[in-house]
Structure formats: C-alpha cells, structure tokens
C-alpha cells in the first residue's frame, strides 16, 4: 500500500490541479465572485516559473510568493496576505455581493529574469462545493446515507441563501428603476417649464428692445 500510494501522491502533486493561466511578473489578475452572505470561499493555487534556459516551466519554485487580496462589495479589504508558491486562502463573506479576489506575485528575485512568466493553477470553490465530504464523513463518523443527507442539506442551504440574496438584488434593481422613472418625470417637467419661461422672456426682452429702437 505504501509505495504505490506515494507514487500516486507524487504524480498528483506534480500533475494538474485543474485550470491554469499565465501572468507576467508585475501583473495583477483579479477575479470576481458574486456570493450571498455567510458563504465560505476556498481558493487553491499553485505557481510555476518559466525557466528561460531550459524553456520549460519549473515544477516548483521555492521562494516565490503570491500576494492575495480580497475586497468585499463596499471595497473594504477582507483578506490581504502573502502566501508561498503553493497556497490556500479562505474567507467567509459577511455582506452579500461582488467580492474581488486579486493575485499578484511580489517576488523580487523575478527582477533578474526580465520578462518572466508565471503559470498559475487556480481553483476557487464556493459554498457547498468547498466542503470536503470524505473528510466530513471521517470526522463525524457518518454512514453513507447520513453523508448523502448532509450533502443534500448543504445544497438546500446554499439554494436558500441564494434566494435571499436574490430578493435583496431585486430590491436594488427596483430602486434603480424607480429612481430612473422619477428622474425622467421631473426632468421632463423641468425642461418644459424652462422652455416656456425662456420663450416668454425672449419675446418680452425683444419686444422692449424693438420698442426702444422705435422699430415697432
């Protein structure tokens, strides 16, 4: 059991962790997560640096750091921390809305490799996708049926939170539409009044002007 498992573990670590993309040295990449409140978000990332001599991405680079910054919908910073080349960040939202997750590398060593590129493997899990069910089963000692019931409960809870958030969003949408409606109404009336008043002023001013010039 020992050797094959370790081999598989090594393959797992070296291999894919899902999606990846490339960023430049000083580039900052931001992602947006629109989530209801009290939702947990777990992000896993892994970075690889481009080796110019060998023209290949190095499997792992010690000493390479990534700075992770998370902002809530009001712009307040929720999480701002530096992690290593492999990292895992977690945060829980306290206000519903658009949370912004920004990543950038701040390794000063990269200044030596001008034009260096980084390959970043990223995996963001939100809400009940963030739950690790085999771990929960082991911790709480659940049977299969109990674990399935727990998974269904978590899913239903997420649906409920999303519905609450939807109600809050719909209210904002309605307020915006009503504000537009009011603005259109009042500005139309105001412009008609301005039009009439300037028309009257024009006629009176010109009439008094022509009377003064003895043309009328």
């Amino acid at each position, binding site marked *: 059991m020992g050797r094959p498992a370790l081999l598989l573990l090594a393959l797992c670590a070296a291999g894919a962790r899902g999606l990846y*993309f490339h960023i430049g040295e000083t580039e900052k990449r931001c992602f947006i997560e629109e989530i209801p409140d009290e939702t947990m978000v777990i992000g896993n990332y892994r970075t690889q640096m481009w080796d110019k001599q060998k023209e290949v991405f190095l499997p792992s680079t010690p000493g390479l750091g990534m700075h992770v910054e998370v902002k809530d919908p009001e712009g307040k910073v929720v999480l701002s921390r530096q992690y290593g080349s492999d990292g895992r960040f977690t945060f829980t939202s306290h206000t519903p809305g658009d949370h912004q997750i920004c990543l950038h590398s701040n390794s000063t060593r990269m200044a030596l490799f001008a034009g260096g590129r980084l390959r970043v493997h990223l995996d963001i899990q939100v809400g009940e996708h963030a739950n690790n069910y085999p771990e929960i089963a082991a911790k709480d*000692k659940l049977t299969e049926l109990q674990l399935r019931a727990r998974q269904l409960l978590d899913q239903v809870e997420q649906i409920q939170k999303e519905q609450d958030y939807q109600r809050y969003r719909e209210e904002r949408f309605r307020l915006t539409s009503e504000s537009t409606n009011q*603005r259109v109404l009042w500005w139309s009336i105001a412009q008609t009044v301005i039009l009439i008043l300037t028309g009257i002023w024009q006629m009176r001013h010109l009439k008094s002007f022509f009377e003064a010039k003895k043309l009328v």
Partner: protein
Amino acid sequence: MPGLGSAQRWAAAAGRWGCRLLALLLLVPGPSSASEITFELPDNAKQCFYEDITQGTKCTLEFQVITGGHYDVDCRLEDPDGNVLYKEMKKQYDSFTFTASKNGTYKFCFSNEFSTFTHKTVYFDFQVGEDPPLFPSENRVSALTQMESACVSIHEALKSVIDYQTHFRLREAQGRSRAEDLNTRVAYWSVGEALILLVVSIGQVFLLKSFFSDKRTTTTRVGS
C-alpha cells in the same frame, strides 16, 4: 444485549471506514473538475486559460458576459494540436460540449480586441468529466438501495436548481447593470439638455440684438 452488539458493529464499521478513507485520501481523485470563474477583460485584451484533459473525457464550456458595452465577447477553444474546436465572435452567451479526442492541454481564450474602450466582465464554467462520487469505494458491487438512489436523484435535481439559479443571477446582474447605466445616462443627459436650452435661448436673443445694433452704421453705405 442487542445494544452492545450493534455498538460494537458500528465501531468496527467506523474503524474500517476510517482506514479505507485514509487510503483513499492518498489516491488521485480522478480526472474531473469544475471551474467557475468571473474575471474582468479590459479593452483590446485577450485572456487565455488552459487545462490538461485526458482522452475520452466529456467537457462542457459555458460562458456569459455580465457587464460592459454590448455584452458580447469572442471565444475560441483549441485542442492540443491547435485545431479550433469552437470559435464564435461577439457572442453574449453560449454553451459548448465536446469529448476530448486526445490527451493534452486544451486552451480557450476570450477576446475583447474589437472594443476600444469598454471593459467586459465575463463568467465561464468549464466542467471536465463527471462529478467525483461521494464515496469512491472500490468495493462497490451491490446496487444502491432505494434511499440511496432517491438521494442521488435529489442531488442531481438540486444541482440543476443551483445551475439555473446561477444563470438567473447572471442575467439579473446584466439587467441591473443596464438599468444603472440608464439611470446615470438619464441624469447627465437631462442636466446637459437643460443647460443647452438655456444657453441657446439666451444666445439667440443676444445675437438678434447684435444684428439690429450694427445695422444703423452699415445701411447708409449701400450706395458706394
């Protein structure tokens, strides 16, 4: 006593499960993943994402533009050899399912190069393979009980509910973005129009007055 016997059986079962789970945690959980990402695409920019996929895996790429301009983006999906599997220009929303014909790195790119000054926010969902089973038990030979299959079907139904909710949330975000744009545009345009109205009417009067004030000196010089 029956209670003690069942407690012992539960303890033994838990012990067995614990060992199995520990062994399973060390194993690779199968080539499946689902990535849902929302990112901002600046004007004249192109962003690419890559994923290593094994042959025969069924994958789905779904994307939607949430805010920005005409809410459209170019999307392109390529296989490891560079063959274009999917290419669409200026699409607002689309969903594409394919089966990986070869092993390798698949690449998909979103491009906003046709836009001069609008940033776009794009959401995409890239699903590779099926969801991993809850209990990746290698000794699963017995069929699911009725309760378990009921749980599985409820789980599938709830997954599609969550999926529809996500799409609804995105469409609502798009509608709300348009409504907020309209609101600010109405405000600026109304103020601007009122000012233009005032400036034009006052300007007209003074221009007309200026025609009549200079005329007296010029009308006498017609004969020359």
